[in-house]
């Protein structure tokens, strides 16, 4: 087990009567890519701010890179906040260099590093442009580069993909992979589950300030049963007796894409159940299927399953 770069023990933050973060426990291994998932207002940004010592927890302990305050190891941490902002009148290379020098890098080295990053991520032509002349997406890329210019051991990116077009999202994904390949630890929060699915080894799911899941992506998928959709003219309620099948129910007639005169059935099966068994059972019983739809459980399903109802209630309350 690799050593932990960050650990939170019973961390709690309250604003008056409102508990923003409630007794969060967490340990992030070195060199991993860790996703913070949760609906709006779940407490992700508050947790990140406490990790960075921008705000202090009311209870609990945080240990970052072996220290009790991120301020003690600030030169070893990179941070991209949720709400992006840069000095509008500064040149692109200068702003990357400036934030690197604030993190302890020597001025000359920081300047070289800024140009190196800009070339690596396709912004070399904009090195001397002022920030206010950049598009929002490019500005965001510059800010991401500013957060990693000083080669931090721990990189924390709060909603790094928001506002980026698909091409730049791909660039950012590659950047995160590059960081991981360099042995750097990356924590990022996101609403877009596909990114977490592609990049993260481990996930933290929080809602209303409390942790609801902490583990690998596969562990997350295993939380909810796998779903199979069948379409035929027969009654398939008997499939419920099959081993590994958790439930069988007929979908309403209004279901999309249905062939006229057929019936649609939704089956939930256990994680380890092989869906081929269902197909074989139908074949042996001469059930003619016009549709057999087995989908891998997505992180999106897990997210909706775990936090969907609470998030809806919370957001529209």
């Amino acid at each position, binding site marked *: 087990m690799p050593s932990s770069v960050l650990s939170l023990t019973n961390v709690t933050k309250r604003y008056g009567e409102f508990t923003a973060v409630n007794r969060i426990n967490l340990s992030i291994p070195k060199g991993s890519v860790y996703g913070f998932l949760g609906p709006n207002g779940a407490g992700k940004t508050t947790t990140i*701010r406490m990790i*960075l010592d*921008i*705000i*202090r927890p009311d209870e609990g302990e945080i240990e970052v890179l072996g220290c009790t305050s*991120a*301020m003690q190891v*600030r030169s070893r*941490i990179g*941070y*991209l*906040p949720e*709400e*992006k*902002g*840069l*000095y*509008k*009148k*500064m040149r692109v290379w200068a702003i990357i260099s*400036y*934030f690197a*020098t*604030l*993190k302890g890098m020597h001025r000359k080295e920081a300047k070289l590093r800024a140009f190196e990053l800009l070339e690596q991520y396709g912004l070399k032509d904009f090195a001397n442009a002022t920030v206010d002349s950049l598009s929002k997406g490019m500005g965001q890329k510059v*800010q991401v580069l*500013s*957060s990693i210019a000083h080669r931090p051991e721990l990189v924390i990116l709060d909603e790094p993909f928001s506002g980026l077009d698909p091409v730049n999202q791909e660039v950012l994904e590659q950047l995160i992979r590059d960081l991981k390949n360099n042995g750097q630890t990356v924590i990022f929060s996101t609403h877009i589950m596909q990114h977490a699915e592609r990049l993260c080894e481990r996930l933290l799911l929080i809602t209303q300030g409390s942790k609801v899941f902490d583990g690998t992506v596969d562990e997350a998928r295993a939380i909810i049963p796998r779903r199979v959709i069948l379409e035929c003219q027969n009654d398939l309620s008997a499939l419920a007796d099959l081993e590994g099948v958790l439930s069988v129910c007929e979908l309403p007639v209004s279901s999309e894409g249905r062939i006229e005169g057929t019936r649609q059935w939704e089956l939930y099966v256990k994680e380890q159940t092989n869906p081929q068994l269902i197909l074989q059972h139908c074949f042996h019983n001469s059930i003619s299927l016009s549709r057999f739809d087995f989908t891998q459980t997505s992180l999106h399903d897990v997210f909706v399953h775990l936090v969907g109802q609470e998030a809806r209630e919370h957001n529209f309350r």
Partner: protein
Amino acid sequence: MRVTLLIAWREYLENVKTKGFWIGVLLVPIVFFIIFHVSSRLATATPTRYYLLVDQSGQYADSVESAILREHQRRVMLDFMRYLQENRSESNSIEISNEPANQMDQLIDDFSNDEVAALDDWLSNGGLAVALQMARPYLRTDAPDFEEPRPQFVAALPPPGLDLNAAPEQIVETLRPFLNGQQRLQAGDNQVSLFALILIPADVDSDIVRPAPVPTGMADDSTPRGLQYWAGNLTDTRLSSAIQTSINNVIRQQEYTELNIDVDAVRDVQRTRLPVSRLDPGKVAGDEQVSLADTFRQWAPMGFVYLIFISLMQSVQYLLSNTIEEKSNRIIEVLLASVTPGELMMGKLLGIGATGITTIVAWLGSFFVFIRLYQTVETAMIVQILDVLLSSDLIPYFVFYYVCCYALYAGIFLAIGSLCNTLKEAQSLMMPLMMVLVVPILTMSFIAQDPNGTMARVMSWIPLFTPFTMMNRAAAQPPMFDMVGTTILLVLSTVAVLWLSGRVFRQGILRTGQPPRILELWRMLRKRTT
């Protein structure tokens, strides 16, 4: 400390690298130069004024014309004095000691002591022709020829058809369209505007006012009395004043003659004067005479107070706008992940403070360059005054009070900036503080006149006013108790304000939404951490 300096350097560069900053900095000396240059040249730029003189009494036309001629000669004499100062071979500066070294200095000395007498002498001794002859040995070899200013008041011919013997009311009615600019007079080949009508009625003598125990002959207020001066321009009073003085002189001479009093003897008596020596008991024995330099030194602190005030106003603008920009752009969060709020605050204070000092240095520098390059009588005098000021002990006072004043107010303004998301929000919070800041400026001249009076002493002990008031009192040697006491209080207050501002800054900088109310602000001041 390293990150504090990095932040300070960035803040400094961000401000001083902008065109707006340098436009603002250079605008002050440029405006100063324009005002200085324009005002000194404005007199010569005044257009020629045409007047019409109608003397129905037949007694005063000569004296009016001589008054106008005298007004012109006064301008010739003034211009000649300036020419003399600028083209003297020995030096281009005025000696403040007022010890005449030669005939030219005697002339200048006479002029500065009694302009009326100097003009009399000027005219009786042959005017410009003689003065030029007398001055020639003292002028530089490359001195340009003196250009006599053109007359500013020129007599116009009456319009055709005007009956000069008609009733005054009728003359005025005929000339009213000319006076109102609706019609123009012919003067040679040109059409000119009529500036003024000087109408002296036939019975003007009946309106002469003589001292009497009880006023007699109270006429109807709406009826013009005495000499009638008709002019649409109410601000240029040179012509009316000159005529009034001249006519009164003629009348008084007539009175003297009637009373068998020697007119020349009266004139000599009127020119008799007793010099008043102003002496300062605080100066070294034998050198107690109050010089022009001493007077300027006494008033100089006001200039420093202005300098502190203007620089402070500029600095707080930068502080507020930069802090609010960082807050609204959310840069602040990145910064706070890299530096502590204390380091950020100190960096800002240092950076903006350096910007303020740059402004002052740029102003003073451009001012020095200006007065060295643009040498006139006035600037030569300013050079000497500045030399006096720079050699005085006011500079250390200025440096100390500037630093304290900046730290005190900048801390407060920075805390305000940290609580606001927009400049509009900040303006409402700034208003009470701006009103406080206006007080020392409003009371500045009173304190300069009575630097150790009750008002000055009371205000000195109010920390928000101390830097301004004590700077203003600096030249008046305030009591040691005031000096030491207010300095300790000011330093302690500055430290306390910075400490409390730091608390507000730490909590306010990440705050969103409306600025806090008083009660919430009080809680913020008491709370230790975020």
